[in-house]
């Protein structure tokens, strides 16, 4: 008996390890960097290089085009479209194409971020080992968020991603603003985590399990037997509390207040990480939780649960998007502006989830497609937002200012920077022919598809709100473009003696050109992402 159990556990764990390859490589990198530091090697080799190599290795192990299929024995690589959804470690994690896709995006982003850190001055050699380990640690947490299949892992992963983030915000010693931001972030994060934990315990207590598919099964049994009043109250409370925790990670209204302060206090590099990686992981987690709870063997049983969740997420998404866009109007600091822009984009990202919930059970293939649209949005968002933060970082290095006012006349001071930032910001609006449009088009397409298939009015409203928000956001993004290209150089503007160097400018163009040219051929990206998500609902 015991022997069988141990035997079973061993085989399961060993097989599961392959599915966790990328995380393991990242862990190994962290250990290596810490060891190197112990032996004072990091003074000779910048640990950013080590981290980059580690990330690259992780990407290779993950193998985005042909990931490992752990169900076969021996384990072998299959093309991503054929990857089955499989549980790892006795149901704690799940390994599937969707996870592989988001993880790939994260790793690519991480590579670009490390290159950015090499090119800027904020996180120099002295801090480098600390900083890279924190960054990699947070990334592992995000990976767990992406592949979670168990509410306990949800909580653990969120904490694992958050705690290093608090430290990263405060990493510049003696920077009062950074420390203040980190404190705010930590207090807020702890509060949100507590609320979420309470919600989780309520839900688990009610459903007698913490394993998401089992919970969904119990929930469908409960609903088919008819919910009592107190059970409904409990369920709604639990859903609200868990969503509060997720909303904190997504910086969704009304849990967004930390975002502008933290972005302003942290360096632009950390801002980029929080704005892209953290959002990507959080929205992937949202997909896991919402659909884990909403999807069951017989989809008709959980229809009310799904429509409740869809309404909840949809309303929060619309409010977040609108609030972010409106609040961005008044900003004078570039990082604060980008923070509100991040909030707005979190809203767009969340908008991709309700159509999935609406389509499950009606048209599962279409629901999987909607998950793919979300992935497409993430892929483009990653690039353009990273570029915008990179410009902020380079300009901070050269003129020591992050005020929009000081960007005046940038087109004469440093044309490359002005043109790149203009392209990136216009892409963030979502105007064709820039890449941002591709993402928006896909997400709105998903909403339209969901609406036409189900006739759910919420989705129609969401489509309209999303599109009008695009027009609203034009104003503040274009204001920055206007300041850079049309306003004359102010006498009181921060001086810029030497513009960003050739390496920095090349980096900017490397990020901007894909944004500019993606429209020519984004079929491959869409095909890959659609293949990755095709198995999400089967």
């Amino acid at each position, binding site marked *: 008996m015991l022997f069988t159990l141990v035997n079973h556990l061993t085989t399961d764990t060993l097989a599961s390890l392959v599915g966790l390859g990328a995380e393991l490589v990242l862990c190994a990198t962290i250990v290596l960097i810490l060891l190197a530091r112990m032996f004072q090697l990091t003074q000779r080799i910048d640990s950013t290089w080590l981290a980059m190599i580690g990330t690259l290795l992780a990407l290779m192990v993950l193998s985005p085009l042909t990931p490992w299929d752990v169900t076969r024995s021996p384990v072998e690589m299959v093309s991503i479209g054929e990857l089955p959804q499989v549980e790892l470690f006795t149901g704690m994690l799940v390994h599937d194409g969707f996870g592989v896709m988001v993880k790939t995006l994260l790793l690519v982003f991480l590579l670009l971020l490390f290159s950015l850190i090499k090119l800027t001055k904020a996180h120099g050699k002295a801090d480098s080992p600390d900083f890279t380990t924190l960054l990699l640690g947070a990334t592992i947490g995000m990976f767990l968020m992406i592949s979670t299949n168990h509410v306990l892992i949800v909580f653990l992963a969120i904490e694992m991603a958050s705690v290093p983030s608090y430290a990263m915000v405060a990493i510049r010693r003696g920077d009062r603003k950074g420390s203040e931001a980190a404190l705010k972030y930590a207090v807020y994060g702890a509060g949100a985590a507590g609320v979420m934990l309470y919600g989780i315990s309520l839900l688990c207590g009610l459903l007698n399990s913490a394993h998401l598919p089992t919970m969904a099964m119990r929930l469908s049994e409960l609903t088919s037997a008819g919910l009592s009043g107190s059970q409904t109250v409990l369920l709604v409370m639990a859903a609200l509390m868990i969503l509060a925790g997720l909303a904190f990670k997504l910086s969704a209204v009304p849990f967004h207040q930390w975002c502008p302060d933290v972005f302003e206090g942290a360096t632009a590099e950390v801002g980029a990480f929080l704005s892209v990686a953290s959002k990507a992981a959080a929205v992937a987690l949202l997909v896991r939780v919402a659909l884990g709870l909403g999807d069951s063997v017989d989809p008709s049983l959980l229809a009310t649960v799904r429509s409740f969740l869809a309404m909840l997420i949809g309303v929060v998404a619309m409010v977040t998007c609108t609030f972010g866009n409106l609040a961005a109007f008044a900003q004078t600091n570039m990082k604060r502006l980008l923070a509100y822009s991040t909030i707005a984009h979190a809203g767009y990202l969340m908008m991709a989830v309700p159509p999935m919930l609406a389509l499950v059970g009606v048209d599962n293939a279409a629901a999987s497609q909607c998950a793919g649209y979300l992935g497409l949005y993430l892929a483009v968002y990653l690039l353009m937002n990273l570029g915008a933060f990179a410009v902020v970082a380079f300009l901070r290095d050269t003129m020591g200012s992050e005020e929009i006012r000081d960007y005046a006349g940038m087109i004469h001071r440093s044309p490359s920077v002005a043109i790149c930032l203009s392209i990136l910001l216009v892409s963030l609006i979502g*105007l064709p022919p820039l890449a941002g*449009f591709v993402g928006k088009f896909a997400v*709105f397409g998903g909403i339209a598809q969901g609406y036409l298939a189900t006739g759910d009015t919420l989705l*129609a409203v969401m489509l309209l709100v999303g599109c*009008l928000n695009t027009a609203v956001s034009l104003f503040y993004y274009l204001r920055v473009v206007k300041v850079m290209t049309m306003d004359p150089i102010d006498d009181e503007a921060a001086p810029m003696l030497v513009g960003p160097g050739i390496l920095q400018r090349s980096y900017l163009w490397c990020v901007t050109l894909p944004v500019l040219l993606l429209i020519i051929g984004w079929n491959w990206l869409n095909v890959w992402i*659609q293949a990755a998500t095709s198995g999400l609902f089967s």
Partner: protein
Amino acid sequence: MDNLALYIVTSLIFMPVVGAIVLLFLPAENKSLLRWFTLAITLLVLLPLLGIAMPGADWLSFQVGDGGVQHVVQLSWIPSFDIQFFLGIDGISFPLLMLTAVISLLAMGASWTIDQYVKSYCVLYLLLLAGMIGVFLSLDFFLFYVFWEVMLLPMYFLIGVWGGPRRQYAAIKFFLYTLVGSVLMLIALLMLYFNSDLRKLSPQQLTASYVAAWDNGGNLLSAEKYKQQLEVSEHAVHTFNILALQQLGQNSDAFDQRLLYGKSVQWWAFVLLFVGFAIKVPSVPLHTWLPDAHVEAPTPISMILAGLLLKMGGYGIIRICYPICPDAGYDLAWLVCSIGVISMVYGALAALAQSDFKRMVAYSSVSHMGYVVLGLGVWSATAGNLFDPTAWNMGVKGALFQMIGHGISSAGMFFMVGVVYDRVHHRDLNQFGGLYGKMPVYTAMAMLLFFAGLGLPGLCGFIGEVFVVLSAWNFSPTLAAIAAAVVILTAGYILWAIQRVYLGPQYHGPHEEALTEINRREMAVAIPLCVLAIVLGVFPAIVFRYMDKTVDRQVTDLTRWTEEVKLPRLRAAEAEADQEVAANEP
């Protein structure tokens, strides 16, 4: 040779883009090189189009006897979204393409006065040109939308950097208005796409709308084969092909699904698209961006705005709104026509009230574009009317001709205003007077163009107006009477302006000494416009020649649809209502 023709068509879009890239590497100090280079590129866009316009070369010439789409360029682009790179020319788009090329060339000629940041100006100008050509060429809705938006950003900068004192306000206003219109269009585009289903089309319809698919080897499949493939498909096969969407709109129930408030998909799509296009046209009450943008833009950009950008709204209505959503078009004919007439009256009254010369011309555009909306909206088959497709046909042709005529006359008027503004640096109608004495040649040409705008018989503005008003008579005599009366208002503001600016005692306003006769470069821009204004007025057949067959065909299709689908449906609804009344009787 066929392939060559297709390369030529594609090059119309990419020539300006390549030109813009080359410009980036030219020295910024050598302004005249930059200008001449840009002019050469615009000429390179015009020449192939002239080649297509001329009869003679079978492989290149526009076949006037063919009502369908010609010179079709079709490549698979984003197969996972059924998006194609799909270009083609027909009788509706070809005259507008010619107009685009001509006005861009002339406006570039007018751009010599731009002296600041010439390089950036030229680059943006060429990108704008690429966008405009792309809009008129593309037959894939996604591609159309991309080009539609490509124009916005260059236009924003062209107004915002090189414009007048309130340029930044005008530029952002222009951008915001157009963007709101285009996001509404995006919603309609997505709705139509996800409701479209190629399985509902017959092989003939598939062929007619150039629905193309490729096998794994990259070879084009025949319509029958593709149809077989479609038959076995479990899911709906969506499409962005505008021609296929037209077929679906007229021959299937693809867009009849009920949505909000019991209205169908096509009703909502029509409304969203129409609002988007009406902002561009612009129609009252969505016109308020236009006076600001036109007034603040530099002269050549005003020429482009009035001469070309406004035409895209009309083009969108005739290419997309009506053929794809005929049912909604039928039901909303009154709304569209009323909006057209209101724009005409309001624009004319507003033009009368202006004291700024350029603003007056801008409002005259609102008024004149109202004719286009009215002409397109006239639906001769409305219940209770005499069913007369000829009148309908005339309305569409009149609207199209009005677009061409207005493109010439408004660009000319803006140029003429620009010429005098360059000299005296103000545009106050009340300070002018007696320019005739100092600039006789200029005055003669200006008066000719203003009369063309007025719609004097024998000049290009007349034909379109008269066709539209005549066809509107059949639809609603009241609207036609109002539309005809607007001519009086038009005559009022144009003659009054001519009187205040050109006639009267000699000019003694600001910069009196700068008033010199029109120079040779300005002459080179003005003379073609004057010639075109006269030629199109005297001999309109040179435009009708190209558009006749296509418009006939589209109107015939819609007539057939009205007779076979809409009228029986209306009769059935009527009979049902009668029965209900009968049943409820005691």
